[in-house]
């Protein structure tokens, strides 16, 4: 049994009386505890795939199974980190996390919820900013809070839609390291679907990289890089280079075909 399974999923919407195909007969499986990166050119339907998986939209054909049950809407077993603007601007960092914990139904008492929120803020290194509002935090800090909220909700599955897309390279690396730590090193491994268009980000984070071309998954790549290797060593491995070229070639090929 796969944790997540897309069976022949198609998605289209109507615009000016014409059906616009986004996904067409897509098949895709993610195993329990796998860190899956979806990579592909812009406009290939990556975000739609996540939105379907989250249950905000529904496939026009085919079905999506999570734990062998079809997706009928958002559920507490899935957490989400968006690219930006996902924190509630009227709540402080801590209250934002508390909101998530409360909605996940993990804890009942306000005291325990507050304590858990503080723990996760500490974990992402923002203990000092607990009482700041999102507009007082930088983009990177906001994304840390969003990560803390998603992890504090302790969902089985974590969906991330280009969570670091709008962040400068140095902060981006920090946040990637933080994600690895939160996802992999803390006891039970989470099932993660992570969307990116950055090849290095995918290789550093993923167990498996799924390359998406418009409408469907083109191919999957087993990364198989040694775990617990520092980033500097990782990117100098031959295997890393080889994977990188493989993915770059795919990008070029898909671009040529769609051009």
């Amino acid at each position, binding site marked *: 049994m796969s944790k997540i399974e897309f069976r022949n999923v198609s998605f289209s919407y109507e615009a000016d009386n014409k059906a616009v195909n986004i996904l067409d007969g897509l098949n895709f499986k993610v195993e329990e505890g796998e860190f899956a990166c979806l990579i592909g050119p812009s406009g290939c339907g990556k975000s739609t795939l996540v939105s379907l998986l989250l249950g*905000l939209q529904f496939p026009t054909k085919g079905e999506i199974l999570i734990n062998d049950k079809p997706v009928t809407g*958002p559920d507490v077993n899935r957490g989400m980190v968006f690219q930006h603007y996902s924190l509630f601007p009227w709540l402080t960092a801590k209250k934002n996390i508390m909101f998530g914990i409360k909605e996940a139904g993990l804890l009942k008492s306000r005291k325990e919820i507050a304590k858990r929120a503080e723990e996760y803020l500490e974990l992402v290194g923002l203990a000092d900013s607990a009482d700041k509002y999102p507009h007082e935090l930088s983009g990177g800090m906001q994304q840390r809070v969003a990560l803390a909220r998603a992890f504090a909700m302790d969902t089985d599955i974590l969906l991330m839609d280009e969570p670091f897309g709008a962040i400068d390279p140095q902060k981006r690396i920090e946040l990637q390291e933080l994600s690895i730590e939160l996802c992999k090193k803390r006891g039970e491994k989470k099932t993660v679907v992570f969307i990116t268009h950055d090849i290095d980000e995918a290789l550093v984070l993923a167990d498996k990289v799924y390359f998406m071309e418009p409408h469907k998954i083109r191919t999957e790549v087993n990364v198989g890089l040694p775990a617990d290797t520092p980033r500097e060593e990782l990117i100098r491995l031959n295997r890393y280079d080889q994977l990188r070229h493989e993915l770059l070639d795919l990008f070029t090929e898909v671009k040529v075909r769609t051009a």
Partner: protein
Amino acid sequence: MTDARTLNSLETQGSKKTYSVGKIILNIAIVTLFAGTVITLSFIKGKVSAPKNTVYVFIMGFIWLYHTARAVIKKDEYHPDIAVLIYSLFLIWDINFRILGNGNPVLSPPMENVFEVFLKDSQFIAEGIGHSLMILVIGFSIALITGNILGMIVGWVKRLNNDFTPIAKVLSPIPPMVYTPYLIALMPTFTSASIAVIGIGMFWPIFLGMINRVGSINSRLIDSAKAMNVSTPTMLFKVILPYSIPSIVGSLKIQISTIFMILIMAEMIGATSGLGFFIKKYSDYADYARVLAGIFVVGAVITILNVLLDIAEKKLIKWKAV
């Protein structure tokens, strides 16, 4: 290059500072000159009698104090234009209508007499303000609570939105003045009728405003809430409502003037107390000194309410959209 620029900016900063002290003194001198002239003139006996000028002098003095304080606090940003304009108007009015006796003293009473009404009729005016504010607060609270909550629900639930938006679009443009006499006849007391007029008159813009707000809320925020699997009540009261509060308070400031328009109009039709009644009553007696005093009071009350709303907005809303 850099040095030259720093030097340059230092220089302009330096000269700006000396300039600003001189300017403050100049501003205060201008305001004082005008205030002094207006106050001195009010002691001169004119063709039209003005037995007392206590309140007039007090108010002119207050304007002077306010503008002097602003000149000191705001420094370069302060301009004496408004003070000069206000004093000039009083000066022209005083010289023309009171001292020289041009015009009809009934239609253009001396401002000394107008302001003296505040003291003479202070109890009547205070009661009027109290009564008007009571009606306003009750009527507006009803409109605010029902309009926003119903607007939120109708805006969120598509089916209700389709049903009620067309109805609201037909009913909302009907001016409250049209149904005011009917409501006064229908309701048991005038007070309840005024409350109903304000409640209904303000309900529609608030209701439609909230529907629009829900429709234009940032979809990322909604998705983010949906991703956390929130229930509909949570979505409405913990996400959409807090998100809307700043814009609700913002439109409150505009609505305050509209409400006063409806209220004063309703009071002019059938009240036995209140500011509108005060103005209407003395218009009927052609006591225009009191009418003008009443008009000034209405202006002052609206201004004070607006200032209070501004303060409340700053204290209560600490967040900004990201």
